[in-house]
């Protein structure tokens, strides 16, 4: 599917008849993410390079979408997780509905929020990005709109009308497209228990320098106010792969001050190290426990945050020491008239 999307997007960019690209899912999901099980099987069969190949294609597609010279409208009517975010969040317009469920759940799997998440999560308000990336928290459509992951909220019943209106307008102008979608938007209210009302706690805790300090800060909050949500957050963090937590935090922090190309290049290095299992096998253990055997009881190794040195985390960010390995080569974009909102991401 990644290869097919790449083909199509490349073709559409050159085709003057294509004014905008709309992406939507079939069924109850927009896209639940990459087929991680297939990647694992590929690696067992053909070595880590087979997995790397998949990610290389996927991140190239993500970059192409992030720097696309025409607007992309993604209709997120359902689950949008992991790789599904990679093919939607980088586009100009993301339309959420009452059915949307967003998540970047990679840390529970021994991976890390990739597909350029270190770019888009780090740019959410305050330290919400760290919270979402480390805990894999689920967000609904209203929450997605509130924090900026979605640009519009349209009730699912009106989606067909949006599609028709956009096709009729036949325009590439983001201002026109936005005002068309606006016409079908409805006010979405945040639910009472929304995490978005807890931004003060999130900022206090998830701004801390290290994962250990984030956990301590959360534990201090629980002492002050016995709070189910904070306890649940602590539990989620404790169940995630410690290595994943550390590299995810660093990835988001570094990504906050980098352009989207640099983020994807860096994430590619990280994912190659993960697949090579150089410092930890958590990715394979996570897939086994959650996706294959489904016992939901992964045995992480290293099992404790304290056992993971900063120097180990450093190594995930360095080049892979292999003759044949190369840094991610991003498609050239210089010959296109890139719109300002794309230029701002570079």
């Amino acid at each position, binding site marked *: 599917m990644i290869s097919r999307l790449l083909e199509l997007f490349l073709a559409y960019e050159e085709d003057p008849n294509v004014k905008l690209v709309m992406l939507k899912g079939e069924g109850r999901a927009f896209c639940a993410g990459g087929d991680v099980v297939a990647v694992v099987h590929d690696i067992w069969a053909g070595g880590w390079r087979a997995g790397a190949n998949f990610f290389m294609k996927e991140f190239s597609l993500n970059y192409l979408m992030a720097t696309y010279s025409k607007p992309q409208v993604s209709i997120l009517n359902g689950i949008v997780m992991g790789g599904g975010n990679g093919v939607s969040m980088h586009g100009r317009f993301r339309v959420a509905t009452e059915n949307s469920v967003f998540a970047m759940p990679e840390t529970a799997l021994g991976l890390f929020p990739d597909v350029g998440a270190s770019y888009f999560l780090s740019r959410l*308000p305050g330290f919400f990005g760290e919270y979402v990336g480390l805990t894999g928290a689920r967000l609904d459509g209203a929450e997605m709109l509130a924090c900026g992951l979605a640009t519009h909220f349209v009730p699912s019943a009106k989606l067909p009308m949006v599609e028709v209106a956009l096709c009729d307008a036949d325009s590439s102008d983001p201002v026109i497209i936005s005002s068309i979608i606006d016409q079908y938007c409805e006010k979405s209210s945040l639910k009472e228990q929304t995490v978005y009302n807890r931004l003060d706690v999130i900022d206090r805790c998830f701004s801390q320098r290290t994962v250990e300090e984030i956990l301590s800060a959360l534990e201090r909050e629980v002492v002050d106010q016995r709070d189910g949500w904070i306890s649940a957050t602590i539990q989620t963090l404790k169940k995630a792969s410690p290595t994943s937590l550390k590299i995810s935090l660093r990835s988001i922090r570094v990504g906050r001050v980098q352009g989207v190309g640099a983020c994807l290049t860096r994430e590619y290095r990280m994912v190659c190290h993960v697949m090579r299992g150089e410092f930890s096998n958590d990715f394979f253990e996570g897939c086994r426990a959650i996706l294959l055997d489904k016992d939901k009881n992964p045995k992480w190794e290293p099992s404790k945050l304290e056992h993971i040195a900063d120097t180990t985390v450093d190594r995930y960010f360095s080049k892979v020491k292999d003759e044949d390995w190369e840094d991610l080569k991003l498609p050239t974009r210089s010959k296109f008239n890139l719109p*300002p909102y794309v230029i701002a991401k570079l």
Partner: protein
Amino acid sequence: MEQAFKRTQILTNHLLQSSPSSQTLSSNACLSYSPPELSENYAFDIKDMRKLIDRHNLEERDWLFGLMKQSKLFNPKVRGGKVFVSPDYNQSMEQQREMTLKRIEYLLEKGAFKGWLTEKGEDIEMRKFAGFEVCSIYDHSLFTKLGVHFFLWGGAIQFFGTKHHHDKWLRDTENYWIKGCFAMTELGHGSNVRGIETVTTYDSNTGEFVINTPCESAQKYWIGGAANHATHTVVFSQLHINGTNQGVHAFIVQIRDADGNISPNIRIVDCGHKIGLNGVDNGQIWFDNVRVPRENLLNSVADVSPDGKYLSSIENPDQRFAAFMAPLTVGRINIAISSVYQSKVALATSIRYALTRRAFSLKQNEPEVLLLDYPSHQRRLFPLVAKTYAMSFAANYLKMLYVKRTPQSNKTIHIVSSSFKATFTWNNMQILQECREACGGQGLKTENRVGQLKGEYDVQSTFEGDNLILMQQVSKALFAEYMAAQKRNKVFKGLGLEHMNKPCPVIPLQLTSTTLRCSQFQMDALCLRERDLLNRFVADVSKCKAKGESSEQAFMICYELAQDLGKAFSDRAIFQTFVDAETTLPAGSLKDVLGTLRSLYALICIEDVSFLQYGYLSVDNGANVRREITKLCTELRPHALALVSSFGIPDAFLGPIAFNWIEANAWSSV
């Protein structure tokens, strides 16, 4: 004819610009912004280069950048689709001061200052340096308020105080339960600390020191933090015990209570509006026989017994004063190393701008030329990049010297920090001015940062030691080294003067391109100048003294040579750190580019008028040097973007003109 001309122009733009896609004809005839990332290549890994010049605590820096970027307190603004953070300098003096304090409170709450006074060791010292460097990129007022509180007040407690002071004050300082300031400078005495006029006496009946401002020139002046917020201060004062003036000592005095009321017998007035740095509340302070307990004397070097006897382990008052003042070096180091970062902000902004801004065509119907494609523009900016890289390496050397300090290395640290502080801050102001001009009118816009930095940072050349005085101290120290070496059988040791022990270097008659780029030649030339000027300086000073002048008078008379010698020492010492950094690299494109930069730095030092004045270079060779500089600038053109991207300053902390300046100023953005 006009029609045809216009038509040809439009067609030319089509062919030279972009894709035949959906844009209408009219927009193609306009200038459009093309980000430099798309047309320039990186010949080396900018992450590796950043690691080389920032050296330490990269992760901490990025975290701190993120803390500032993600908070509304740091005044985020969207320009051209990107977020920029920079203080609102349009606010009143009072508002700017409140914002500075609020920002400090935010960073404090996030744990940015954890361990800054209560932890010991090299790690925390390096982390503090990195933290200060990042704060200085955002705002000088933030940097200065923090510097006064942590390095001056906090440093005074740490280094001038003893255990009971540490126990009582360090934790409270680190947590900002008290706010400290540093009352040393007076209206009549700044650089000459020994001449200050505040007087303290001891009352053995009550066991108290009595601190007094005897006359108007003795009032404390420019005391950062004093006008609005500080609760405590370290007062520097002459100490009179039993009728004898024992010299300058330091005392802790509370100047405000927790509610902000000024303490009794203390008068404080605001110094007023400044040309920059208005986020710092500088105050004037008068002490009217203020009484403090005996324990408030910071007694690491000297003490007073309860019954009023003066005690000190150092007999000689000059040595005692030197030992006393030694800890202040870290403040000077902090200013030197952070000044390099303003140069980086200015250069990153102006070079990125010059990579996207065009002016004048060379031929009709051709597109206008990019600013950075003009050799004259390259000549303005690339030598400044070379200087900034040189200063980065020298700054790292200075930091290492400091954190690995021993009692024996204190003198070296004092001299090197004096030399570097003067050189870096002077360079900084030169770079800011040039970059402001290179940005044209846009350089006047406050939000573009470069111009505003000039006013904010101008003070660097005169505070923490006036630059001219610091350089004079350097030349005096070199004189003393010369004298000491004579006693040691003419063997020079320390301060990099070992080259004096070798035979005098010789400059070849014919300076070819290869020779000019050779690091050995470059070092020889700089060492030759330092050696010759040191010899001349010693000779002239000795001649004066032989005529009966005192040392001080002789130094005063020979000030021109002193200045030239100070510069020669600084250039050579900084160049050495550049060469040392280059040798650590494996062969490759990074090392090649750094080598070109290194040559450029060396040659602009050698281009200095002193080489012709004192005859180290012939007029012809001087011309060869200048020609080579132009060649080097041309060679560096392809690396311009990579070199400034390696500074590692996030986009949000540069000026909007470094990015899509057309969109930033578009009607739709208003």
